[in-house]
């Protein structure tokens, strides 16, 4: 089956719900196992010669930081799906991803701050990397507020999609901020030209944790998408209910008028 055929097939929310009902328990299981392995490896990782045991914060800070950007990337693809292909699940995917992305970004900021205090001597510095990630967090909150503020889902979808694509400019700024400006934050040490500078004793637990957190995102995202589909079904049934009530009261008023005449 081609990718296009798969996407077309998944455009049907009922099929999507049926498919995710089957795969979610497996995804949750694999995520839990990988998280357990990653946490064990993180606990057993040696101390860094400079940072000591504080290096252990890296195993949770870096996956959250990666995901904060990755989730916005997913939302940007979904925004294109809303604006260009008008895929029925595109806005559902973007809306469901936003609170999860906000949570990962919040964790990246706080764990970074808790790592920064013993290493840099400060919890916060208004440098390019930290400030651009804070802006990303505020953009997540802004998008969530937008979806809540606009009552009509299709209007909210288009406005949110445009805002998401505009906000995507911030992603390369975050990634390359450590190269473009003089920042307190260290430069890239894993995803960089010339390969990772991390020792394997730190790299393996970090990669396992990164995969585990990515699977955690996929699991939570699919589950949140299911909730959003159900929420939209509730809304459409409530509108049917409201129109029936309005029709019944109009018919009742009409019958009274005929009776009076």
């Amino acid at each position, binding site marked *: 089956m081609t990718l296009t055929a798969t996407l077309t097939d998944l455009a049907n929310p*009922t099929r999507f719900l049926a498919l995710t009902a089957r795969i979610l328990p497996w995804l949750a299981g694999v995520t839990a196992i990988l998280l357990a392995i990653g946490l064990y490896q993180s606990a057993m990782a040696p101390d860094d010669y400079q940072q000591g045991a*504080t290096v252990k914060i890296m195993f949770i800070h870096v996956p959250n930081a990666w995901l904060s950007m990755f989730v916005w990337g997913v939302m940007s693809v979904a925004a294109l799906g809303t604006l260009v292909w008008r895929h029925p699940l595109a806005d559902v995917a973007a809306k469901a991803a936003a609170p999860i992305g906000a949570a990962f970004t919040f964790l990246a900021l706080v*764990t970074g701050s808790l*790592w920064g205090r013993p290493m840099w001597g400060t919890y916060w510095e208004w440098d390019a990397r930290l400030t651009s990630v804070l802006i990303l967090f505020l953009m997540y909150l802004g998008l969530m507020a937008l979806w809540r503020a606009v009552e009509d889902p299709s209007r909210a979808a288009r406005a949110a999609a445009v805002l998401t694509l505009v906000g995507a400019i911030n992603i390369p700024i975050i990634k390359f901020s450590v190269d473009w400006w003089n920042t307190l934050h260290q430069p890239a040490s894993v995803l960089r030209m010339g390969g990772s500078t991390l020792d394997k004793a730190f790299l393996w637990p970090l990669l396992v944790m990164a995969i585990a957190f990515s699977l955690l995102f996929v699991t939570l995202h699919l589950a949140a998408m299911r*909730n959003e589909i159900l929420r939209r079904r509730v809304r459409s049934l409530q509108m049917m209910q409201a129109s029936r009530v309005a029709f019944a009261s109009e018919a009742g008023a009409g019958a009274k008028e005929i009776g009076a005449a």
Partner: protein
Amino acid sequence: MSLGPYASFIVTSYALVAAVVLLLIVWIVADYRRQQARLKEIEASGITRRSGRSAADIR
């Protein structure tokens, strides 16, 4: 396993991540149950989808 002089920073970081991830899971599960309950409530009042299938049926 000794966490050194900055143990409180390390423990707080891990505890916070665990708490937020747990909160996300609880919120998503609770939201699912809430939507299912609302769908069943509406359907019990006689409102059904045009397909005739139950909106709460996700298999």
